[in-house]
């Protein structure tokens, strides 16, 4: 049980005051109801630990889906002054640019529901999933370097999708200043066979439908309508990103001694942004960001092909336009105003999503009047949400909001809870057809293992950092 004392600032906002060696307070977005679970975890202590890192601006922030991570909490946001601050690979996570793409079709629920089993089976066949899954693409080193620098554009140039959709991907699917020379051979060895794979753990591809619309104007701008068939792709940079993170945690573990940084947890290891170690990590991390953009672009393409085959219509009648793609494990240089002062900060989002409001120059032109779409997957059995960024995110959270439901149960506990039950059948009885690479993955991901994502998105909605647009409900899902 955590012994952390929290001060209530509002119905949805709590503060751990600056104390000991903290350089800023920590703030947690949560309702009173959610706080009990949050406090039962070590996550608030982790949010306080992040506030020890040099150059932190404002607060160490935790979104309502906060849960115990390693080093940084999952659901953590922290901005560091670009001149005096640090960069921490643990503040990005092992799965660099893990993210979510939402695609919306021209099909309605009644057209797809009768074919859902066939669709899920064919998706499972066409999208490589699961532990150690290898992609269908064999990359030479030179091509891998192109993936590292060009991201989604590499995939499009190789026939996976259309150039028009780049506008609807964070950073247009291509992070600048990626430096393949800073990536180890090991990362290449892990990544090369894994491009175009979903992976395992909590990653998935879900076919669903628009179940409820909360904001008609925004839904219209995004092109969402009631009962429309949607696809969510949740995955990241696979072993490539895991190895980049691992390599640089080793580098930073030494850098903290070199630069005299004292840490409350070794996993928080970091280095000044402007140090050679910091610049190398940024160059390598951006390669992993691009790897993930290419990965999701390829999976999106196979999803369209699969729909076309199973629904037996040409792709142009299927639709599956990219509504938006967000990254939720990332560090980026962004301009923000804090305390009335314009500054460039390195925003770490670890299990948190960028949520820029209407009018922000990085919001696609088509969404300028409503704001950047934010995609919040829930658990397998309930629902997911489409949100849009709101003004409050720029004032309170360095342009960020939540990223998902957040786990409420450990994987061991989830497996124990699932023991003796047939989770696949339980879901099928609710009209959700699930296929997984192993039964273990499905058991670990039982709906009860997660918090109710509606509590999470409601908190962000009332805090004014993002607004609800639509709720999506699942029909079918493939899991790694």
């Amino acid at each position, binding site marked *: 049980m955590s012994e952390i004392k929290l001060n209530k600032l509002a119905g949805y906002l709590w503060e751990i005051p600056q104390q000991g060696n903290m350089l800023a307070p920590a703030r947690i977005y949560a309702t009173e109801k959610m706080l009990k679970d949050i406090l039962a975890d070590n996550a608030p202590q982790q949010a306080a630990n992040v506030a020890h890192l040099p150059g932190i601006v404002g607060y160490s922030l935790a979104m309502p889906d906060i849960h115990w991570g*390693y080093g940084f909490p999952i659901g953590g946001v922290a901005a560091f002054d670009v001149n005096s601050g640090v960069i921490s690979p643990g503040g990005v996570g092992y799965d660099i640019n893990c993210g979510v793409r939402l695609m919306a079709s021209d099909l309605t629920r009644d057209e797809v529901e009768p074919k859902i089993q066939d669709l899920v089976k064919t998706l499972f066949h066409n999208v490589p999933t699961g532990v150690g899954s290898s992609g269908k693409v064999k990359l030479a080193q030179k091509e891998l370097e192109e993936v590292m620098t060009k991201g989604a554009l590499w995939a499009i140039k190789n026939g996976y999708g259309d150039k028009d959709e780049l506008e609807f991907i964070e950073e247009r699917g291509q992070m600048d200043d990626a430096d393949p020379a800073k990536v180890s051979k090991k990362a290449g060895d892990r990544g090369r066979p894994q491009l175009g794979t979903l992976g395992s753990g909590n990653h998935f591809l879900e076919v669903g439908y628009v179940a409820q619309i909360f904001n008609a104007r925004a839904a219209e701008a995004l092109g969402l309508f009631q009962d429309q068939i949607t696809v969510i792709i949740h995955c990241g940079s696979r072993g490539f990103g895991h190895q980049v993170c691992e390599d640089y945690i080793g580098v930073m573990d030494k850098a903290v001694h070199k630069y005299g940084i004292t840490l409350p947890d070794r996993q928080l290891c970091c280095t000044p942004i402007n140090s050679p170690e910091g610049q190398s990590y940024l160059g390598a991390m951006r390669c992993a960001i691009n790897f993930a953009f290419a990965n999701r672009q390829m999976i999106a393409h196979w999803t369209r092909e699969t729909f076309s085959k199973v629904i037996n219509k040409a792709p142009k009648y299927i639709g599956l336009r990219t509504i938006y793609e967000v990254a939720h494990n990332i560090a980026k240089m962004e301009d923000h105003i804090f305390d009335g002062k314009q500054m460039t900060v390195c925003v770490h989002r670890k299990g948190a999503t960028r949520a820029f409001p209407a009018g922000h120059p990085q919001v696609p032109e088509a969404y300028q009047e409503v704001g950047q779409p934010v995609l919040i997957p829930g658990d397998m059995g309930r629902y997911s949400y489409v949100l849009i960024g709101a003004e409050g995110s720029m004032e309170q959270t360095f342009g960020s909001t939540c990223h998902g439901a957040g786990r409420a149960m450990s994987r061991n506990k989830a497996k124990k809870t699932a023991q003796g039950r047939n989770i696949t059948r339980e879901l099928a009885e609710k009209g959700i057809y699930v296929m997984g690479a192993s039964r273990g993955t499905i058991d670990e991901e039982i709906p009860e293992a997660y918090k109710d994502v509606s509590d999470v998105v409601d908190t962000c909605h009332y805090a004014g950092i993002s607004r609800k647009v639509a709720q999506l409900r699942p029909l079918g899902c493939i899991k790694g």
Partner: protein
Amino acid sequence: MKSASSFVPIDHTADVGYRLFAPTLAELFVVAGRALFDAITELDSIQPQYARKIAVGAEDVEALLVAWLSELNFFCITEFELYNEFAIEVISATTVRATVRGEKIDPARHVIQTEIKAVTYHELFVREVKDGWEAQVIFDV
């Protein structure tokens, strides 16, 4: 009398962790290897048919444990190998050399429970206690 080696899973919300106990540092590294492959698959399903040499170094014994497990995981992911025998040949606080034995993943015989993204430094410790060595390690899955 020294206690026997063991590994015990610990509950962690998002990840998978183990507490390790062993009479010697060498045996602690053996039990750590077993814990890693216990997280990945069923240890009893692995047959020690094939040998691989492993040699890693690090700044201190905790970083060495991370490096050791990370190297085993690297070969599991890139070469699709599973190990259940770990013969430590040389060990100090900063170096370990070993021959590990196992086999290639055979989907017909091996149930792969999870993929380990990484071996973390989070809440990591390795310490000498009265009757041997004790450690804790958390895997990101």
